[in-house]
């Protein structure tokens, strides 16, 4: 077993920002808007770093798909304790149309290339709320999946997982290699400390293109219109 974990981190609009729809209704305003790491991805990074600290895995590799600015998100993961980063460079129209299907193809290709034992992702991104990337990645790799994980423990070459489902908590045991997606209560992400932020500068981030991985990022979906939700009407007491 390589002892290597791939963690996917997505750069999204910060949760505290008030979202505005672009006047041409093609999307939301992203220019000049504060972005940060998807909160569920932070939880995934924290879990990976914890596993490394317990010496259950050897290396944490942070992956992000997007334009140049995605490297900031990878840098945050490095400051939290990831060892190195892979930036899959997708920009322009390709980036606007990037969705779970293309990302899962990219992650599957990277998992094979890096000989990953585990892929840790957030359960969903707070911008599109798709909740699909983890599941699709597992299917493409034909790996077991543990989604909505609120507890993860490694036992030899198996993983004990507690999943948060509508009916309560589900306990499952899956083989490795596997894909796990993190739910809210899995852990509390650490604050990146100053010394770690400064050490992160020296860690390596490698940039690759989807074509290098043999992945075609053309989208099968077309966004027709984006509009604001209807204004709240007054209620009756």
């Amino acid at each position: 077993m390589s002892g290597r974990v791939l963690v996917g981190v997505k750069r999204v609009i910060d949760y505290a920002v008030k979202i505005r729809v672009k006047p041409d209704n093609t999307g939301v305003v992203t220019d000049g808007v504060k972005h940060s790491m998807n909160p569920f991805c932070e939880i995934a990074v924290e879990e990976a770093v914890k596993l490394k600290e317990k010496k259950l895995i050897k290396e944490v590799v942070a992956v992000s798909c997007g334009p140049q600015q995605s490297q900031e998100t990878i840098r945050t993961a490095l400051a939290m304790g990831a060892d190195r980063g892979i930036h899959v460079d997708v920009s322009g129209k390709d980036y606007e149309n990037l969705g779970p299907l293309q990302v899962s193809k990219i992650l599957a290709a990277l998992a094979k290339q890096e000989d990953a034992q585990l892929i840790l992702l957030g359960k969903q991104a707070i911008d599109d709320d798709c909740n699909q990337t983890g599941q699709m990645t597992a299917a493409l790799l034909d790996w077991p999946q543990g989604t909505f994980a609120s507890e993860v423990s490694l036992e030899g070459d198996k993983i004990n997982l507690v999943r948060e489902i509508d009916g309560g908590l589900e306990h499952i045991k899956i083989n490795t290699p596997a894909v796990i997606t993190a739910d809210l209560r899995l852990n509390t992400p650490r604050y990146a400390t100053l010394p770690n932020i400064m050490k992160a500068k020296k860690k390596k981030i490698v940039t690759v293109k989807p074509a290098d991985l043999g992945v075609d990022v053309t989208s099968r979906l077309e966004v027709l219109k984006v509009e604001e939700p209807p204004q709240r009407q007054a209620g009756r007491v």
Partner: protein
Amino acid sequence: MALRSAVCRLLVNPHRCALITASRAQGTAAPITHDLSFKVDTKVQFDWRDALDLEGQLTEEEIMIRDSFRTYCQEKLMPRILMANRNEVFHREIVSEMGEMGVLGPTIKGYGCAGTSYVAYGLIAREVERVDSGYRSAMSVQSSLVMHPINAYGTEEQKQKYLPKLARGEILGCFGLTEPNHGSDPGGMETRAKYNPSSRTYTLTGSKTWITNSPVADIAVVWAKCDDGKVRGFILERGMKGLLTPKIEGKFSLRASATGMILMDEVEVPEENLLPKVSGLGGPFGCLNNARYGIAWGALGAAEFCFHAARQYTLDRIQFGVPLARNQLMQKKMADMLTEIAIGLQSCLQLGRLIDEKKASPEMISMLKRNSCGKALDIARQARDMLGGNGIADEYHIIRHVMNLEAVNTYEGTHDIHALILGRAITGLQSFTVGK
């Protein structure tokens, strides 16, 4: 018909109105032309939160440090401050938490410290003081007034012994310079350090007051006059015989920070505890300049909190059917706040960069400490006024900043003393004393 088309033309071409009026007015005045060659890029959106794009002037590392620490301050410090201030409780744990974050003594290289830039130190101070000036005082004392002198003026043994523990927040330090009878004139201090050649110790006698952290500090960097009349620094440790650190009661400022005295009645201090690499007032002043720089940034953090809080309050509060923010008096106050904060931050950034390049002089630091504190106190008072009655309730936090900034404006050199420092630099004439 003709009248209506004339009116239509005026409405369609408003900037032609002036021409038409001018030509109507006897034709003697020159026609008004509008110079449209100067264009501001209208795609750039003005951001009242960051009026002069400070963000764009920071490095990626500085942004990450700021963001990470801001999250800690808002999530872990903000929830505690209301009761800490109300009940005058100093949460000693926060020093250890900040130690874990690595923000204590951040500019020191080695000894378990982060070794980051002075700009990053300023950003850190701003984030803590956004929560409370008392918390930032505790941090400034630890970093600039205890760790810095040991690092700059101490022996290698002293550095190894104290710095890593101070960096982790395992031990807490305080800085003893000010005395009951000597505040602005530290040179007149009455604390004496007598050398005893037989025991190779110094005997310290005297009292210091207004010492942040002293009631709960583990060590104290105390400045005393030696036999040769020169001021030197000594590291005192809790438990030394004759050393007392009573708390000062009845404080209405910096209540979340512990403040007290350092009373020394013939305290025997081994000569290994002398800071050997400095003598004279240059020693304490070097430390104070370090702290004053952090305060220059920090005070603006408090001002920003007050500005943002007043803005939100006046947007939410409806009187006479409209939000308070609709009123001109409110908007003028906010415009003044926005301007001072934006300009202040720019000056602090430039100062930080100069310090990092070793091109800064003490007068620069005096100028900005004075400016930031004076302006922040003003902003806090205005904001308090904008909140009306609610402004005096600690749940709205602004009154706490008003109280705190009174002390911040005074300590580390009063507003007036810094004016004299600048006055001397401007004129070459000192006006501290009545002599020549």
